[in-house]
């Protein structure tokens, strides 16, 4: 894209401040990125990274501060102004319209293809072909976005941003929804692209930061707390600077005291959304007081398994028992009543009601119990008390427990869900990608919580793609492949290589 438009030799933010009701999201932040440089922007959940980038793109108006491009002050009123200046952003959440094709999604932003009432789709297709060729980013141009996997959608986002002529790229957690393989591919690709582009890269995974960036800036509670060269600091240093304390991800070191079988699935057959058998004769046994890690490439039936256990998906055949009682094809309410806890994959749509307040979300499963209601009236005092106690205990960072849960940062939403599920004292807990998108501090915290529950005798089914997470926490590891459990191995014996082979469906001893 080098030829078009002026070069961006430097981009600077000066004293950017942004307030939301009750929150100071950015507090006098300054940044500088030179030509061809990769700046990693890291910080805890809610530190203000996304807000800062949205300001740079002209989506939010800053309360104070200026944006300088090649030393000249800019006023971006909308993302079109930022595009015109050569800045493009891949957002934390996909910004693709699901019922449009890939080409249409790109055409939407490509002003040069809008010729009055004529939409020059040929030009758009040519541009997509050109960009995907140049950067090695194959996309299915005629497919609808809803038909694409998460990894493919991420590629489309990149292609879209590059098609719009970005010479300065902002990437907001581009890897948080990807599988480890997809992440590796993306990082390799980005390394290649940074030869001709300047980049601001946001991530919670410090090894990615190390692999990709030249300089690193750390935000904490809206303020820059550190600036330095990436090469001079180890991931552990950065993690400590980020959270303000040393981060040690805990390991499962408890003695291996086999409990009784708690959650048992036999010959489970469940259909996926597209009608195929997503679970095809799955066998699983979770004992009380253990963490059973379920490793596997996403899309091999993990989602369907979690939903089937929790009464959210019909079971074709087979049985599920929780502590000796059959729970197959019971409704979610009955499954909850039998002592099941659930941390769902999609926290915003399944884990919380975003427009409800935090305190309401914290009693979502229990508002009908005598603890929180009397004679069909809610006991508001008890609900407030519960929320304050859990806020304290789980360190939920929020302006108040009356805040809408949807306005919290990802990590804090996850803490709300975790607080609700754990405080109920479940017998078994299904945790699906519980640390996806979370910062190191939150990850450490959640791992500690899961281990503590395990020692109290709760059986935990931990579904994750992060091998490290699974290996650190699990007593036993089951590998799921094409809707069946291929093998179950003790956590101590697991190696990355062995799990990787099993996840690819290779079983030879």
């Amino acid at each position, binding site marked *: 894209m080098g030829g078009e438009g002026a070069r961006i030799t430097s981009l600077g933010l000066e004293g950017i401040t942004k307030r939301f009701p009750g929150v100071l999201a950015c507090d006098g932040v300054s940044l500088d990125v030179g030509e061809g440089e990769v700046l990693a922007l890291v910080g805890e959940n809610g530190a203000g990274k996304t807000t800062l980038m949205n300001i740079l793109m002209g989506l939010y108006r800053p309360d104070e501060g200026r944006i300088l491009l090649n030393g000249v002050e800019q006023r971006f009123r909308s993302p079109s102004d930022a*595009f015109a200046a050569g800045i493009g952003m891949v957002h934390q959440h996909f910004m693709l319209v699901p019922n449009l094709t890939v080409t249409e999604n790109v055409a939407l932003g490509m002003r040069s293809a809008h010729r009055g009432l004529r939409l020059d789709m040929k030009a758009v297709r040519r541009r997509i072909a050109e960009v995907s060729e140049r950067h090695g980013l194959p996309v299915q141009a005629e497919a609808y976005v809803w038909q694409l996997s998460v990894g493919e959608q991420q590629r489309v986002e990149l292609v879209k941003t590059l098609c719009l002529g970005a010479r300065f790229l902002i990437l907001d957690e581009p890897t948080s929804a990807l599988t480890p393989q997809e992440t590796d591919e993306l990082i390799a690709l980005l390394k290649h692209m940074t030869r001709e582009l300047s980049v601001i890269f946001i991530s919670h995974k410090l090894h990615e930061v190390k692999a990709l960036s030249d300089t690193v800036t750390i935000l904490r509670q809206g303020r820059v707390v550190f600036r330095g060269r990436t090469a001079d600091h180890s991931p552990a240093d950065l993690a400590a600077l980020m959270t303000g304390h040393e981060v040690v991800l805990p390991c499962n070191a408890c003695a291996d005291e086999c409990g009784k079988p708690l959650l048992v699935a036999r010959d489970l057959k469940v259909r996926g959304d597209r009608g195929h058998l997503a679970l095809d004769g799955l066998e699983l046994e979770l004992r009380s007081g253990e963490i059973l890690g379920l490793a596997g490439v996403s899309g091999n039936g993990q989602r369907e398994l979690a939903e089937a256990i929790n009464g959210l998906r019909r079971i074709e055949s087979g049985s599920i028992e929780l502590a000796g009682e059959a729970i197959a094809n019971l409704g979610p309410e009955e499954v909850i009543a039998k002592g099941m806890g659930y941390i769902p994959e999609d926290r915003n749509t399944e884990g919380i009601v975003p427009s409800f307040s935090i305190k309401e979300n914290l009693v979502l499963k229990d508002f009908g119990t005598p603890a929180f209601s009397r004679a069909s009236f809610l006991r508001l005092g008890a609900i407030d008390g519960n929320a304050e106690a859990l806020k304290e205990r789980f360190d939920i960072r929020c302006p108040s427990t009356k805040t809408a849960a949807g306005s919290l940062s990802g990590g804090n939403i996850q803490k709300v869900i975790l607080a609700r599920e754990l405080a109920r004292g479940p017998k078994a807990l299904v945790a699906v990608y519980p640390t996806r998108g979370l910062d190191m501090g939150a990850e450490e915290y959640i791992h500690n919580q899961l281990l503590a529950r395990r020692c109290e005798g709760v059986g935990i089914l931990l579904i994750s793609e992060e091998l490290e997470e699974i290996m650190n926490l699990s007593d036993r590891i089951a590998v799921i492949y094409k809707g069946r459990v291929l093998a179950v191995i003790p956590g101590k014996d697991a190696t990355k290589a062995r799990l990787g082979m099993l996840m690819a469906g290779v079983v030879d001893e």
Partner: protein
Amino acid sequence: MDLLATLQNILSIGVPFSVALLIAGLGEMFNQRAGVFNLGCEGIMAMGAFLAFLPPFFLKAGPWAAYGNLLGLAAAMGAGALLGLLFALVTVSFKAPQGIAGIGLQMLGWGAAGTLFRHFVGGVTGIEGIPTLPIPGLSKLPFLGPVLFNHSVIAYLAFLLVPASWWLLFKTPWGLKVRAVGTYPRAADTLGIDVRRIRYQALALGGAMAGLAGAYLSLCQAKMFADDMIAGRGFIAVALVYFGRWHPAGILFGALLFSLAQAFQLAVQVLGIKFPYEFAVMLPYVLVIVVLSLARKSRMLGPSALGKPFDREMRI
């Protein structure tokens, strides 16, 4: 009884019945594709019918009589667009709940049209209206002639609006923006598209089309004005958009189905078939409800942000 003649009769009554529903439905489709449903369609149609009626009524004998109908059409569409913009102001800028605002607009249009009619006109008076325009040659075809080629010029226009709307929605930059804004406004916003402007434009277009639909009723179909002449057609048009899965062809199908059912029930009454007429009158409405409830709920294709106001700085 000649079956073919009866069929021809039903079809040639049913086809013009569908015109107002079709125009209003296509207009409502643009509203909903942009993410706003306008229940006030009925009120805009009433205003359109009334304003279209006024010029030919007042200019009846004067030197300007020839322009009465044209003026009427322009007034109806202009007022429709303005009411659409008013609705946009209330729902897009002020973020009022769309359902309530729509009911308000329906009552405003309906009440204002009736009151103004009684003030300026008084009793029921006919106008000459827009005459039918048989298409030379084609209208003489057996069977097909009277069914398809013997209507007013607006009816032909309405059927041409089906491919035109399809083209506008699916083949132009504006249509692409409308579809994006109604499905995932935040994504459109991050691409620099002004969500509010597109919604204003779509509501103005939808309003103008609802006004035209009303004008068809007073100028072509009834050739008079009465304040209850819309008779729920605006609401049916809103339902037809769901029925037609936000697609022009689906809306055409729905409008024809409903109108033919209505023509059929009229025929049942006229022919004196022994069947309680109350049930016959219900038939078209029951049909719409049944088909609506049987229709597959594939939200994948529709505007999933329908009914939700957009605010850039709101996370939820």
